[in-house]
């Protein structure tokens, strides 16, 4: 069933950013070395099954958890285990298996037990295949507990990878098969696809293919930031809220991306371990904005080498200009969280009389620049702050743009005055979803999100509890 969802209050629609990744896919060369981290979360880690000097093949499980809860680690190339690096003093760094690639074959050995006509497999086998492939970690007892499966591709960020590319050709059918597989192992779940309204072609295709399924909803949304944020998505789709500090599966929901659904299909029907990922190269500082298929564990520098423009200083950002972290360590490996790498100019030169310019390329929440009336011109994008920090004038932009419906400037005034008490909780400081829009829109350039996070931290440190 095709549904158009009403958009949420607040938010901002980012249009026309230069350097969107085109729907072109190229295979990245096999890396010389891959680095396979064994950590699964800040505390949990899988145990290595190989030792230095072992010969491994692409797709081989080289790290495993004794209780089979954490998803296993795979070798992503054929090669030799060169080293296993354990963290020494630093606690944050996890153990890493380094594999030196030994041949150029792209062949990947199947997991075994897969079946192209997957309907004949029993649920236990399907779950095992999904688990062994590392496609996704299903919560324990997922068959009964999960009531909603949400596949979200809202494309609401300034930069988004191309869904057209991911669901190209036969992948659309595989994607639907993947959804059917998930429905088979979680029979009580409703499946919701939340796609950006702009992906008309795919929406048409999928709605034709799924018209007969009564457990299937195809929802379209306006690609307004931060529609893709979990909390916003759940409240627009299901009118549900995740309690602060909790996760989606607490309320019986799992959230997936289209690529993960495809990985489920690949694992169950083709026996393919999840060792390859599509990463978009976005932003004007890349020479070419394309998508790359890369092996997991490839060090970042092998991907970006030769692909960046060299005449300016560049900041590399993971996935999101708003919530993504800056990629500073170029030796660190690509992992499953990489969906795109954004490269934008860092600290572009200062502009003469910036405040008095017509601003044909200046993006703004207000309509104070000509760019608002010139939809055909690409916006300019860099990490400059575009103004000095000033006292808050209560213009209200942060409140109007806030998707969580809190009043950021009010909270920040309290936090800055070191008034850390119940009043902050009463003003719903813990409803903040950390989308960063308040810091973006502020004309006084106040880092509101930073102060809100600081306030939350101080509140918790002083023993206040989140109101449920």
């Amino acid at each position, binding site marked *: 069933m095709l549904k158009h969802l009403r958009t949420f209050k607040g938010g901002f629609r980012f249009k026309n950013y230069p350097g969107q990744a085109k729907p072109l896919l190229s295979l990245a060369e096999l890396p010389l070395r891959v680095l396979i981290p064994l950590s699964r979360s800040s505390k949990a880690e899988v145990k290595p099954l190989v030792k230095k000097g072992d010969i491994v093949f692409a797709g081989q499980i080289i790290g495993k958890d004794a209780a089979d809860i954490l998803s296993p680690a795979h070798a992503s190339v054929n090669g030799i285990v060169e080293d296993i690096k354990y963290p020494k003093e630093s606690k944050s760094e996890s153990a890493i298996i380094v594999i030196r690639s030994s041949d150029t074959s792209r062949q990947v050995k199947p997991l075994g037990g897969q079946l192209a006509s997957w309907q004949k497999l029993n649920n236990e086998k399907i779950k095992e295949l999904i688990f062994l492939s590392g496609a996704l970690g299903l919560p324990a007892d997922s068959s009964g507990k999960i009531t909603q499966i949400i596949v979200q591709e809202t494309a609401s960020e300034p930069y988004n990878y191309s869904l057209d590319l991911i669901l190209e050709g036969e992948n659309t059918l595989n994607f639907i098969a993947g959804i059917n597989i998930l429905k088979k192992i979680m029979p009580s779940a409703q499946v919701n696809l939340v796609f950006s309204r702009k992906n008309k072609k795919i929406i048409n295709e999928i709605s034709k293919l799924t018209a007969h399924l009564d457990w299937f909803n195809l929802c379209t949304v306006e690609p307004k930031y931060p529609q893709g944020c979990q909390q916003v998505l759940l409240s627009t789709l299901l009118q549900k809220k995740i309690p602060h500090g909790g996760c989606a599966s607490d309320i019986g929901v799992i959230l997936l991306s289209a690529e993960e659904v495809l990985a489920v299909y690949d694992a169950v029907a083709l026996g393919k371990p999840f060792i390859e990922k599509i990463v978009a190269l976005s932003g004007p500082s890349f020479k070419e904005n394309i998508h790359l298929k890369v092996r997991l564990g490839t060090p970042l520098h092998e991907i970006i080498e030769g692909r960046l423009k060299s005449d300016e200083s560049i900041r590399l*950002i993971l996935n999101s*200009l*708003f*919530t*993504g*972290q*800056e990629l500073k360590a170029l030796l660190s490996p690509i992992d499953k969280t990489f969906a795109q790498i954004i490269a*934008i100019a*860092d*600290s572009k030169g*200062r*502009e*003469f*009389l*910036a*405040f*008095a310019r017509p601003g044909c390329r200046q*993006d*703004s*929440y*207000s*309509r*104070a*620049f000509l760019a608002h009336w010139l939809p055909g011109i690409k916006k300019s*994008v*860099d*990490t*400059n*702050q*575009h*103004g*000095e*920090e*000033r*006292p*808050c*004038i*209560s*213009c*209200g*932009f942060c409140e109007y743009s806030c998707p969580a419906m809190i*009043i950021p*400037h*009010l909270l920040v005034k309290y936090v800055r005055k070191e008034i850390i008490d119940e009043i902050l909780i*009463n*003003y*719903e400081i813990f409803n903040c979803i950390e989308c*960063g*829009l308040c*810091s*973006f*829109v*502020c*004309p*006084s*350039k106040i*880092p509101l*999100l*930073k102060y809100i996070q600081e306030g939350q931290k101080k509140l918790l440190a002083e023993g206040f509890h989140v*109101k449920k």
Partner: protein
Amino acid sequence: MKIIRTALKKIQAVIEKNKYLNPLKPILNAADEALFGTDKINIIPHITDYLDIKRFMFMVVIALVPVVIASVYFWGLRVLAVIAVSYIFGGLVEVGFAIVRKKEIHEGFLVTGLIFPLILPPGVPLWIVAVGIMFGVIFGKEAFGGTGRNIFNPAIVGRIFLSVAFPRIMSVNWQVPFSSGWGGLAHYQNTIDAIVKATPLVLFKNQGIVTPWINMLLGSGAGCIGETFRIGIIAGGLFLIFTKIVDWRIPLAYLITAPLFALIGNTFFHSHLAAPAFQLLSGGLLLGAFFMATDPVTSPFTKPGKWVAGVLLGILTALIRGFSGYVEGVMFSILLVNVFTPLIDSVVLKLRYKTQ
């Protein structure tokens, strides 16, 4: 451009070395940043909006340009001198406080310094302008801790101070506007003989004469420097609302309530309260509603609070105009509602967050 930049750098080096000149740093920084923008970069989020406070205030100044041009046409080139005096003396106070406090110079003054002369009578002596703006900036803004902390609109504080302290000067300097040819663009000011015209509000209060609305709209009536060219004010106000620089709620509530209240009042107190259209187009109502009541710092920040403030403003304006000894209903009502702003906001917040 490069010449300016190197010059600034050289001056900076001199100031750094000389400890007596050190306090002048804010001036240099302000010049540097105004000309070339900032070089600070973001951490998270990685990008920020291009709108900054300079642009914010600059937009208000742009919105006032038609009004300023029209007022030069009506009252002569002397208007420019009045504006210059306001900017210079107000600016001196602003810079002085920035130096003493060792803080940056803030841009809010760009707007205050321009609005203040627009709400003075055309024949106002220049020394009065200087006194008024200095009083307004010191007691309306800096005494509270500077931009963002003031309770009152500094321009209104200055204006009311002048009305109360120098009532004679402030009420007899009404001139007859130029209305033909090059008008004030070719003259310094209108001849002294012409100074005997009362404003429409005074005419109504004393003699019950209602000025035709078309005269008021185009600005051929008497009045303060910037309040008579009402088409320009409306255009500027809509421009600001359209660009989201000011919120539409207060002007809308204000401009509906004032005539509505006048309509009700007019049926009962015919001689006191003028008809709605006259209320709307006379005095500083439009200028006040679009440019002063909307000052984000001194008006409520909550949306319901904005409605409340607008309605209060409308009622107070009509009441003061009709029943008090003054005709300047707009500035008194804005000052009064400024006082209530924190209260309005805190009541709204209490109601909004009560149930949780």
